């Protein structure tokens, strides 16, 4: 027991924790399904807006309903699963304020893993489910000439998308190590980012594109993979291999965020607040 804990063990523990918490929530079956249903219902508005727009218009920046729906589906799935895996991050700010964050540091787990597992809820499955439905709809509307490289792209796309949103939700928590005010500005990047990733990037102006490609790289997680799957030329004129930038930039982004998290923990451990 004196050995330091390995990442694999941490993941195993996190998995077991999720299992127990899920069982706990399933005990209140009605409430459980109501939450998932409520989440589904809430996010239904997003889908409704998509269809209503295409009821009046034929194309959006030259893209058809099916093509935009593809972006919607990918973004919704990545966002909701990223959110699902980091629900605990929401409670970091209140825990710091109440002093309960000390708890996180008295346990034999890494601080991030511990904070992330401090809360668990499946309600975001409602949105994920909707993403799957929208994606399914998109696939009936667009022609994709499947090939091995495209098939390989799909898991990479989802994993980097989920990781990116997990990192974004972590940023919100990182800020709360220093301040309680104005943290909601991050919403522009989390919620704003997921909304933005539901549309083709070329319709946005230079400054938004810059922010959402190179600072918060959500543009890379739906737009380039979708172009690649659809074999559309990039109206922004970027080369084909840009599709590979998604995972690379996400990795860099996650590394920066994890550095930021460690700085936050260091700050907390030196000031206790």
């Amino acid at each position, binding site marked *: 027991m004196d050995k330091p804990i390995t990442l694999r063990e941490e993941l195993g523990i996190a998995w077991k924790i999720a299992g127990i918490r899920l069982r706990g929530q399933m005990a209140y079956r009605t409430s459980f399904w109501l939450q998932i249903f409520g989440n589904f219902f809430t996010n239904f508005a997003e889908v409704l807006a998509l269809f*209503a727009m295409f*009821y009046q218009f034929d194309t*959006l*920046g030259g893209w058809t309903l099916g093509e935009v729906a593809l972006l919607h589906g990918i973004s919704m799935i990545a966002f909701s699963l990223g959110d699902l895996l980091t629900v605990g991050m929401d409670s970091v700010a209140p825990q710091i304020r109440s002093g309960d964050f000390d708890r996180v540091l008295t346990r034999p787990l890494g601080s991030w893993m511990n904070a992330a597992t401090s809360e668990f809820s499946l309600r975001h499955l409602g949105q994920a489910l909707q993403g799957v439905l929208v994606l399914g709809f998109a696939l009936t509307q667009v022609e994709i000439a499947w090939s091995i490289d495209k098939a390989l792209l799909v898991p990479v796309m989802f994993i980097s998308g989920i990781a990116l949103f997990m990192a974004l939700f972590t940023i919100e928590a990182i800020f709360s190590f220093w*301040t309680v005010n104005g*943290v909601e500005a991050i919403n522009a990047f989390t919620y704003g980012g997921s909304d933005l990733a539901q549309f083709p990037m070329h319709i946005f102006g230079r*400054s*938004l594109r810059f922010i959402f490609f190179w600072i918060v790289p959500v543009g890379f997680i739906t737009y380039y993979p979708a172009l690649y799957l659809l074999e559309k030329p990039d109206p922004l004129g970027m080369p084909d291999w840009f599709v590979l930038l998604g995972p690379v930039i996400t990795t860099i982004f996650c590394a920066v965020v994890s550095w930021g998290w460690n700085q936050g923990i260091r700050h907390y451990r030196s000031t206790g607040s």
Partner: protein
Amino acid sequence: MYLELAKRSFQQQFAYRAATLAGLFTNSVFGVMLSSVYLALYWDKADGVSVAGFTAQQTVTYTWLGQALIMPVVFWGWWLIVDTIRTGTVVMDLLKPMDFFRFWLSRDLGRAAAQVITRGVPTLLIGALLFDLVWPESWQRWAAFLISVPFAVTVSFCLRFMMNLWGFWLLDHRGISSIMLVVSGVFSGHLLPIAWYPAPIRDLLNVLPFRSMLMTPVEIWLGQISIVHGLSLQLFWTTVMIGASYALLQVAERKVVVQGG
């Protein structure tokens, strides 16, 4: 006394400077994003073509009005009354020699007035800097719009007030919360201009009170509706919503008395 309450809520709002700046930033990012999306819909249309009554420029103006009014009108969860029910202060409030509905309404109007200044006007100015917006064509329309905003806030308040009382029955407001989001997001016209929806949905939303929260003020601004028509529509729905709020409050009060709080 209610004026005093309103004044105090008004002043309170100016204390949250950081939150205000963060909120303005968020509203602006969303404003730019949504404007870009809407403009992209008009790419293949000739200049000045209107779709379901909206030209591209009008749609962008609608977007920024929507962002500017998000905070004053409140289009999502607001559970302050439910919170006082949970903490128990509601009993004290009910016992005070005052009108419970007016107590909350006056505070809410004060808050809204402050947020028109701190959030509404700046957001609209940012929108005007970045995009070419449509402005009301006459001073009468400006005046009518200014009158229509408090109506919008009041209708929104009544909706929130009733949702809170309902939450009081269910003790858990998470379920209603999602209904609330759809009602005030979709039904008010905040998500998309109501005219864009397919006929059955559009017709339904047009006869519901919730369009007074945003769509009617926007139409007054854009000149899509006559001033008299727009304002009288809002006046009518405001009256109905206030009446409904009082009716529900009476039932709720009786329940509080029976339960002894």
